[in-house]
Structures are given as structure tokens and as C-alpha cells.
């Protein structure tokens, strides 16, 4: 990113660095003095030398900025470490990120202050203005710094333990941030925190740490997975026995699990399915109908794992049914066929109420009062105390969902890297060519539908027990749209991307209740904007990124270079 011309940068580079350092020093100092006079705005930002959570976040940005600026002052003296980190770009990202963050806080103080009758910005203490001024000065200095060459950090060989340690640290950081963000009850604080997270991601990208991390990830995929799951398992401990956030997080998991199933169909096999919510519905209804609820129509007392398998199988059968037209239709015709199937499913569930059809689902009332699960005396409906940590009802289901998601991810990852996965990708890229190469397209396409549906059905079974009731209106077309957007937004064909997409789409509306009414509006606009500017999603599959930007030479070189680096590092002995 270049804001001022290179000539100006080379002329004023040196004084600008001094200015930036002064700004950064001011930023470091700012959190030590009060920002607002009352504790009622955002979190407690009124004490001197005792920064609040949001202030500490600012301090972090400031310290990184100062560190980077000072280190890069040594310039050539850094020797071979000169280009390891993109010092100047990082400084620019950090200062602009800090500026954006403090601007968000100022805005929040103004809004909350006037809402609560505390006089808007009049509630601000000098500290806030010092922080703002520091950020402005630092940004003004940083834009004059020369653009640094691409960071070579990714090419620095590092021992395995460093990589693993770094990954664990990253996971811990993510866990900490997630717990911190989710526990912010005020909407404005949450939004400010989101601004920080976005800024932090940009800073990381600018340093080149992201590139190094992706290598480390590629080397230690299993370690990362384990660490991530361990963190996810610890998450309920950060909630202090409260159910409020766990409900939301459990919903996110349900959504994410279903989206991962859809990711097989859309992301890997490239078959656009617009009625996918029907599979979740099929699983949920199967589990509900078989449950011990007084309204269940086929109440059989089966152990839960069996119910999950049955639900998955029923959904998979639906998947086969819906997938069968793929023999003949493709592209957006398939999208319409699946959409029609989804609607047929919903209307059928409404009609199976005893008057328009046999009574299986109690029509639009659905099946309520599904009893809680009971594993060998472990009642999912009650709170449990384990190692002094209270695991609430929602937390129980959250943990169960984590296990299911782990299965889903394991299946997905293994399929992705198998012969089947490669077959799917081949079909996605060019079905004709794939068939000519001997890929059994029909079987593979059916398998994609059935496999994805099975996973969604399993998640649906847990959903039925967690929500305690299943009604047809939970499975409307809009939900299918949401799922699809989670996949598209996050990045088709990637696990990480879909998890991020699902979290964004489910968590944001839940935390931002006040714009509950506007969320669909924003969501629609987001889809359009996303397709326009980053059609490959937040976390892009490399191949897909190339496909979407085939005229962009620079990006092509970048991706190629990254791939080569990856390849060299993963196969140090050389040779292709």
C-alpha cells in the first residue's frame, strides 16, 4: 500500500521515522492515563496506570509499532535479518490499525456517551485525545516510510519445536481473544474489539508472520488441529458457568458443522446446492421422531450414537435422491433443482400433520419437548462440576458438538487429500475432462451429495436434542442461503475458511442484537460486495484464487512463489 509517492518517501524518510517513533511513544504512554471519567462507557477506562481490557489492546498495538520502528532504525546493520520482516509495511499497518482502533473507540464514546446522557465526547478525558494524537502522528510518519521488500521470514528455516510453540501460542491467543470478545456484553465494546481483531490480522499479514505461520501449519497440521480442539474444549471454562454465551457458541458450531458438509458438495465437487438445510432438517426430524418425546411418532429408546447414525443415514438417503438428477443437470440448473427439493422437503414436513398426509411431524408445530440426552448417567440437561469448572447444559451440548465437528473435519480433511477428493476437484474444474481422464463422475457426484448430507444429518440429530424442539420453519430457504454464504464468504474448499465464515455469519448477528433487524440487509449487500471484490472468500484456496484473478499477473507470481517456498520447505531434500 503506497499513500505518498516514492520520491517524497525517499526525501522525507528519515525525519518521518523520528516523527513516527515520537507518535508511537505517545501511543505507548496513552493507556496509562484515564480515557473517560466514568466506568459506564465501554469498559473501565477511567483509572491511571491500570489500563482496562480495551486499553491493553491499544497498548499492544503501540508496543508492536514502537518495536518495529526502533528495530528498523538499525537498517543495514541488521545484516541478514534486514528483510526477514517487512519492517516498514508493518509499521504502516500497525499505525493505521491503531488509528482505526482509537477512532472506533472515540466514535463509541461519542455514541454511548450521548445515549446514556453522559455528554457524548464531553465524557472523554485527555488520555483519549493523547492516544488519538499519538496515532495520528505515528500514521503521518509511517506513510512516508519506504515500502519494504517482501518479507523473507517464511524462508527462514526454523526448528520444529519453535513452530509448534508458535502455533500453540497462536491458538492460545485466539482462545483468549475469543473469550474476551464473547464476554463483552456491550455491543459497542464488541464492535471496538472486532476492529482490533481486523487491525491485528492486517498487522500480522504485513509482517510476513502469516506466511511463516502457514508453513508452520503445513508442517504441523496435526499439532495445530489438536491445539485448536484443546482450546475449543477449554472454552467453556472461560464462561464461568454462564449459559448465555454457550448457547450462541453451540449454535455457531451447529451452523459450522452443516456448512462443512455443504463445503464438500459446493467447495470440493463444485455442485451448487441451494436446498442444503433440508439435510440438517432430515437429521433433526429423524432424531426427534425417534426420541422419547411425548410427541414423537416412532418413539424408540435407542442409544444416542445409533440415533446419530440413523439420522445421518436418512439424510444421506435424501442426499442420494437429491443428488440423482446430477446425472443430467449441472450448473445453475442444478442449483434450482436442489432449491426445489429443499422447498419440497419443508412443505412436506408441514403437510405430514395428519390432515394433509400421515401424521409424522405434527405439521408446523413440529415435535417439542425432546428430553435431554443421558450418557451412562451423565445428564446433559444439568450443570456439572468438573475440576471446579461448571459445565452448563449448553456447554454439555457444545462439547458434544465439538466431538461431532471433529469427526466432520476429520472426514473432510481425509476425503480432500484422497483419490476421491482429487476426483471431486477434477469434476469441479472441468467435468468433461475429468470424465475423459477416467474419473467416475456420476458415482463421485452422488458420493459428494450423500457424504455431505450424512455429516449434516449427524449435526441435525444433535441440534434436535440441543434445541429440544424441531419445527419445519427452522429449515427455510433463507437458511440454505446462509449456509452457502458461509462457505462462499469463508473460502470454498477450505476448513478454516468455512469455520471463520460460519462464525462471522452466526456470531455477529447474535452479539449485535440491536441490528438484528438489519442483518439480512447487510448480509445481502455483503454477498454482492464479496463477489465483486474477493470472490474467493476470506481464506482462499490457492487454486481458486488463481481462477478468480486470472488476469492479475502480480498475484499469480505471488501465489506461485508461495507454493514453491512451501514445496521447498516441505521437501528439503529437493526434487519434485
Amino acid at each position, binding site marked *: 500500500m503506497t499513500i505518498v509517492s516514492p520520491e517524497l518517501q525517499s526525501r522525507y524518510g528519515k525525519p518521518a521515522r523520528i516523527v513516527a517513533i515520537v507518535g508511537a511513544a505517545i501511543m505507548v504512554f496513552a493507556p496509562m492515563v484515564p480515557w473517560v471519567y466514568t466506568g459506564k462507557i465501554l469498559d473501565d477506562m477511567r483509572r491511571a496506570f491500570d489500563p482496562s481490557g480495551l486499553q491493553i489492546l491499544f497498548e499492544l498495538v503501540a508496543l508492536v509499532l514502537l518495536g518495529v520502528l526502533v528495530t528498523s532504525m538499525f537498517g543495514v546493520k541488521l545484516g541478514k535479518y534486514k528483510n526477514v520482516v517487512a519492517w516498514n509495511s508493518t509499521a504502516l499497518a500497525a499505525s493505521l490499525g491503531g488509528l482505526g482502533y482509537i477512532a472506533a473507540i472515540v466514535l463509541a464514546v461519542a455514541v454511548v456517551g450521548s445515549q446514556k446522557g453522559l455528554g457524548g465526547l464531553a465524557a472523554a478525558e485527555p488520555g483519549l485525545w493523547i492516544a488519538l494524537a499519538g496515532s495520528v502522528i505515528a500514521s503521518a510518519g509511517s506513510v512516508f516510510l519506504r515500502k519494504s521488500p517482501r518479507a523473507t521470514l517464511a524462508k527462514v528455516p526454523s526448528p520444529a519445536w519453535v513452530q509448534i510453540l508458535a502455533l500453540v501460542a497462536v491458538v492460545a491467543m485466539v482462545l483468549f481473544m475469543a473469550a474476551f470478545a464473547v464476554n463483552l456484553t456491550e455491543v459497542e465494546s464488541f464492535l471496538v474489539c472486532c476492529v482490533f481483531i481486523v487491525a491485528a490480522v492486517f498487522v500480522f499479514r504485513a509482517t510476513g508472520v502469516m506466511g511463516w505461520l502457514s508453513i508452520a501449519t503445513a508442517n504441523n497440521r496435526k499439532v495445530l488441529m489438536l491445539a485448536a480442539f484443546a482450546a475449543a474444549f477449554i472454552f467453556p471454562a472461560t464462561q464461568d458457568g454462564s449459559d448465555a454465551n454457550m448457547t450462541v457458541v453451540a449454535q455457531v458450531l451447529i451452523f459450522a458443522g452443516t456448512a462443512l458438509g455443504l463445503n464438500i458438495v459446493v467447495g470440493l465437487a463444485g455442485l451448487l446446492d441451494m436446498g442444503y438445510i433440508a439435510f440438517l432438517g432430515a437429521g433433526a426430524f429423524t432424531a426427534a421422531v425417534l426420541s422419547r418425546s411425548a410427541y414423537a411418532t416412532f418413539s424408540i429408546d435407542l442409544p444416542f450414537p445409533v440415533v446419530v447414525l440413523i439420522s445421518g443415514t436418512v439424510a444421506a438417503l435424501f442426499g442420494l435422491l437429491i443428488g440423482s438428477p446430477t446425472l443430467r443437470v449441472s450448473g445453475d440448473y442444478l442449483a434450482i433443482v436442489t432449491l*426445489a427439493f429443499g422447498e419440497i422437503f419443508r412443505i412436506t414436513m408441514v403437510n405430514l400433520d395428519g390432515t394433509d398426509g400421515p401424521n409424522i411431524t405434527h405439521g408446523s408445530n413440529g415435535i417439542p419437548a425432546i428430553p435431554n440426552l443421558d450418557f451412562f448417567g451423565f445428564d446433559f440437561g444439568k450443570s456439572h462440576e468438573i475440576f471446579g469448572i461448571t459445565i452448563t447444559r449448553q456447554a454439555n451440548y457444545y462439547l458434544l458438538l465439538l466431538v461431532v465437528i471433529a469427526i466432520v473435519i476429520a472426514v473432510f480433511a481425509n476425503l480432500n487429500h484422497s483419490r476421491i477428493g482429487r476426483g471431486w476437484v477434477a469434476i469441479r474444474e472441468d467435468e468433461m475432462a475429468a470424465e475423459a481422464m477416467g474419473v467416475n463422475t456420476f458415482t463421485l457426484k452422488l458420493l459428494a451429495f450423500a457424504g455431505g448430507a450424512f455429516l449434516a444429518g449427524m449435526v441435525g440429530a444433535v441440534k434436535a436434542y440441543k434445541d429440544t424442539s424441531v419445527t419445519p420453519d427452522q429449515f427455510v430457504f433463507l437458511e440454505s442461503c446462509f449456509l452457502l454464504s458461509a462457505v462462499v464468504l469463508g473460502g470454498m474448499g477450505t476448513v478454516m475458511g468455512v469455520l471463520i465464515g460460519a462464525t462471522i455469519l452466526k456470531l455477529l448477528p447474535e452479539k449485535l442484537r440491536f441490528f438484528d433487524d438489519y442483518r439480512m440487509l447487510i448480509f445481502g449487500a455483503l454477498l454482492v460486495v464479496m463477489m465483486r471484490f474477493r470472490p474467493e472468500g476470506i481464506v482462499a484456496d490457492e487454486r481458486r484464487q488463481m481462477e478468480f484473478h486470472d488476469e492479475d499477473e502480480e498475484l499469480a507470481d505471488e501465489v506461485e512463489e508461495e507454493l514453491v517456498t512451501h514445496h521447498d520447505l516441505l521437501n528439503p531434500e529437493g526434487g519434485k
Partner: protein
Amino acid sequence: MDVIIEQCLNGLSLGSLYALIAVGYTVVYGIVQLINFAHGEIFMVGAFGSLTIWLLAGSPTDMSIGFALGVMLPLMVIGGIIFSVLTAMLTEKIAYKPLRSAPRLAPFISAIGISVFLQELVRLFYGQIPGFPDARNKIKYPTITGISGASVDIGGVQLKMTTVFILCALAICTLFLWFYINRTKVGRAMVATSQDQMTARLMGIDVDHVILSAFAVGAGLAAVAGIAQGLYIGDIGYKMGFMAGMKAFTAAVLGGIGNINGAVVGGLVLGVVEAFASQLGDTAWKDVWAFVILILVLVFRPQGIMGAKVVDRA
């Protein structure tokens, strides 16, 4: 016998609605091979646009028949068309044009986004304009003297004036469309572009302009359908576009997508079939049958009943 004629008329009016909307799908698909998922919303915008004109005119309720048919109705139709066409052209510029060379999934998802966005825009903000009804619920459509509720008796069969209106609208629109496609320069450019975009461009046709006019023409007809639906059913709502859009798309596919005559025939057939299905007392499963027809046609005869062009798209 009377019942059969009555259901036929019902079916034909329903079918005319579908046909008017289906033309929009077909014209756009014929040229850019895009299922304009937001077309149902364009139809909804048309209905709301005409309502807006009525509200701006001071919501006249007791109109003389001359004023109603001579001034108010034409104004509402023109207003609805203007709203729809502007919306459609805007969406084309914003959401589809930048994605013309992107993989096929991208414009489709963009279209879903537009569809959701337009629905929500109407739902949230229509009622906020001073003096306008809240669009979160269904809104009663204004009654036009001489059409709403009126009927003529022809040989013992009650012929509703709304039916007459819809059938006339379809007839006029089809004539207009025929003239537009076959007798105007833009229309013939459209045909040429749908046959071979590259060659059309080489022959000096402004393809972007042609695509934009295809969206505009479809939107205009959809607006007429929106007004017709308001008069025929009696109320409009922000959700009306989804189901109507799906049905119309079914009609377009039934007739052979890309084929304008096919869209009209497909719409009428679907309408009549649906009317008789509800006559047989199967209202709960009515929509299911429509979707089943859609699936069967897509799977077994993707070129539709009239289509000669075999569609093979990946």
C-alpha cells in the same frame, strides 16, 4: 362445465402473471446465461412502485371510472415500470456487469445477495417514508374502480375484470415484445447477441447496452405483472417475489429457457395446471407439484416444451 371454464380463466390469469415474469428470466438467460435470481424482487418492486404512485396521488379511494381507468391506472403502470426498470438496470450495473468474466457461481451468488437486499430494503424502509404503510406485513392494494371486484356476465360465466385486465396486459405486452424484438434495432441486436456474443460485438453491436436493455425489458414486464398481481389478489408484500419468481422460472424452463414464446406458453400451461390442481382439492400440496414439475422438466427435458436449443451448461 361452468366450473371448468371458471378454472380455465383462473388458470389463464395466474398463468399470464407467470408468463409476464418468465419473459424477464428468459430474455436475460438467452443473452448472458445468467439465472437472474433477483428478478422476483424486481416484480415486487414494480408492485410497490405502483403503490407509491397511488400514495403520492393522495390515495384516492372513490374514483370515477373514467379517472380510474384513464388517469390513475396508466400512471400506476408507468410508475411501476419506471421503478422496476431503474432497479433492474442499477442491479445489473452494480452486481452483474463487473462479474461478466467471473466463473458462473459468482454472478449467481451476487444475484442471491441482491434478492435478499431488495426484500429487506422494502421491508425495513418502505414504511419509514412518512405517510407510507408499514411493509413488514402485507399491504392492501388500492382498489381501482372498474377493475377491482367488478365482473361481467358472459353467457352465465362470471368474467372478473381483473382477469380481463391481466389477459389484456399479457396480450399488449406480447405484441410490444414481438415488435421490439423483431422490428427495432436494439431488439435485433439482442437476437444477434444471444446467438453469438463475440460475433455480435465484432459486427459493431454494443453488447453491454444490449444486456442492459434485456434487463430493462424484463423488468418492465415484471412491473406490469406486479400491478396485475396486486389487483388480482388484493394485497402485496415484500415476500411476494420469491414464490412468484420460482413459479415464473419454472414456467420459463417449461417453455424452454431462452425462448420468449416458450416463456409465455409455459406460463399459461403452468397456471392452468395449477388452477386445476387446486380445484381437485390439493391446495396443501399445490406448491410441491409445481416444484416437482420443475424438477422433472429440468431433468428430463431441459430444453422445455418449445425449445429447440439444447442447453448444455456447466
